[in-house]
């Protein structure tokens, strides 16, 4: 093909804009409009059924003094750290398993990824039944290996690790898939020369596999962090933030403010802070990822 002058290339490209317009209208209506509306509403005091008034940044200064909200941030971070670290470790280990060749690999991998597509509410219900302190199957399994029973989601100390367990079951497959994608893209030469040099499997993993898979792993960590921060369905169905407020994460707090108390201005401010937190976490991780790419 002839090389077109850049203005003509631009004109040709701009002809394709019309394909985007319908979707753009939808995105503006259901995605961008809510963002703008939320930002504006966060500057207002409004409870549904009462008159609205502009209050500037008062919602935010109120949040900074709201101990229940500050507590929910702490719990969200605690939950997120666990719900990222454990699936990442297990996801890498299971990716190493699925990277081997064995019969029925495709079929077993298909079974392994079922949890990540399953309906969260349905999954949460089954886990609720498994967590039952008297009749639940988990305490029975603990008793089989000689461990004392746990109160799981019914005690403030164990509720968050127990909820993380559900998340680990739900999302380890996603990490596994991303890391597996990284493993299958690895070049074979460094492994061959390492083997010739007599490197042990652990040395090869540390010196070759891990650094090469690290960029993929960082993508997995970023996705998992965003999702863990946003976890709602399983926590809401299993504990609704309880016992007391022991598992009340930002998202649960937000739900209660908006749709139990109908404080829309206050809740919108929570959304803004929450979104900022997600963006900051993602950018931090992206920064780490850039560094791992350079070195």
């Amino acid at each position, binding site marked *: 093909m002839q090389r077109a002058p850049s203005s003509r290339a631009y004109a040709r490209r701009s002809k394709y804009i019309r394909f*985007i317009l319908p979707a753009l209208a939808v995105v503006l209506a259901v995605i961008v409009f809510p963002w703008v509306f939320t930002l504006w509403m966060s500057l207002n005091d409004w409870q549904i059924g009462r008159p609205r008034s502009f209050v500037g940044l008062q919602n935010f200064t109120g949040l900074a003094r709201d101990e229940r909200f500050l507590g929910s941030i702490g719990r969200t971070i605690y939950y997120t750290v666990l719900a990222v670290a454990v699936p990442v470790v297990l996801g890498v280990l299971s990716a190493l398993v699925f990277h081997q060749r064995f019969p029925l690999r495709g079929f077993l991998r298909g079974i392994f990824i079922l949890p990540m597509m399953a309906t969260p509410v349905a999954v949460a219900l*089954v886990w609720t039944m498994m967590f039952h302190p008297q009749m639940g199957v988990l305490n029975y399994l603990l008793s089989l290996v000689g461990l004392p029973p746990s109160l799981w989601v019914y005690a403030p100390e164990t509720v968050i690790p127990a909820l993380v367990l559900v998340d680990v079951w739900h999302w380890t497959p*996603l990490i596994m898939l991303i890391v597996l994608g990284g493993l299958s893209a690895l070049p074979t030469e460094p492994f061959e020369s390492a083997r010739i040099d007599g490197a042990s499997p652990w040395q090869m993993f540390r010196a070759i596999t891990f650094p090469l898979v690290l960029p993929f792993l960082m993508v997995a960590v970023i996705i998992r962090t965003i999702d863990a921060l946003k976890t709602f369905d399983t926590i809401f169905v299993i504990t609704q933030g309880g016992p007391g407020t022991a598992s009340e994460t930002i998202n649960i707090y937000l739900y209660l403010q908006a749709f139990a108390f109908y404080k829309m201005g206050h809740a919108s401010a929570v959304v803004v802070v929450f979104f900022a937190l997600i963006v900051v976490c993602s950018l931090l991780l992206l920064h780490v990822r850039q560094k791992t790419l350079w070195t």
Partner: protein
Amino acid sequence: MTAASRPQPPARPVRLPRRLLRQAALWASVVVVVSPAILVFLWMLSLSLKTELENTAYPPIFIPRAPTLANFVEVFQKSPFGQYTLNSIIVSGVSTLAALLVGVPAGYGIAKARASGLAMVLLISRMTPGLSYLIPLFILFQVVGLTGTLWSLVITHLVITVPIVIWVMMGFFESQHPELEEAALIDGCDIWRAFLHIAVPLSRSGIVVAGILAFIYSWNNFIFGAVLAGRETRTLPVAVYNVLTFEQIAWGPLAAAALVVTLPVLVLTVFIQRQIVTGLAAGGVK
């Protein structure tokens, strides 16, 4: 190294058990990795097929002694579960079709025009918590009087389906070879017909995957229905949640209801398993 320099026969008997050991270790780790995934679903199935007596027994009964479908019958007879199933099919079906209608051309347009701005918006929307769309849309639906209708749910579910479809199709069209379309354009075919008669038929498999993924994520969504749906317009996840909270807790029917909700998704997953594997590895659809 020649065969003569190292005596072969003694090496053999040492090697064989070692390889066997490796194989055994590999299979053991496969079993450890896969069993939690499958066991939770099997436990769900087991609970749904047992009587209440067997479900509350301790130690737990794993394999039903007299499997019964009574729990499923109870779910559909005691609550309008048929209606809820229909609601879910309508909401997820219509929002997915609408998303395909606007999203497939958009994915094509973005791939061709390199409109990365809209792609950026979609990426940010992926980071935004679902609840933050609900507050404005909830207020909007109250103002226009749509609260509690299936329409309000269909519109809200576009928040889920449209970004997925555009994202998947964008990647699909970017990896598609443009020669055939370019040849058609040179022959005087306009871009709209090149899209409709060449690009779309060539990307049928991508459209199917985008549609199924959008349908699954819409089907699984709980929070939109929990806030917006009325008594008659509940989707399945909301209905199941209500079985948990408002009725006497009986494990059999509860597990049966949970299975009814998630089984269609699991079946669809099996169909697009391969694409999920490659698609997610390539850049993260979800």
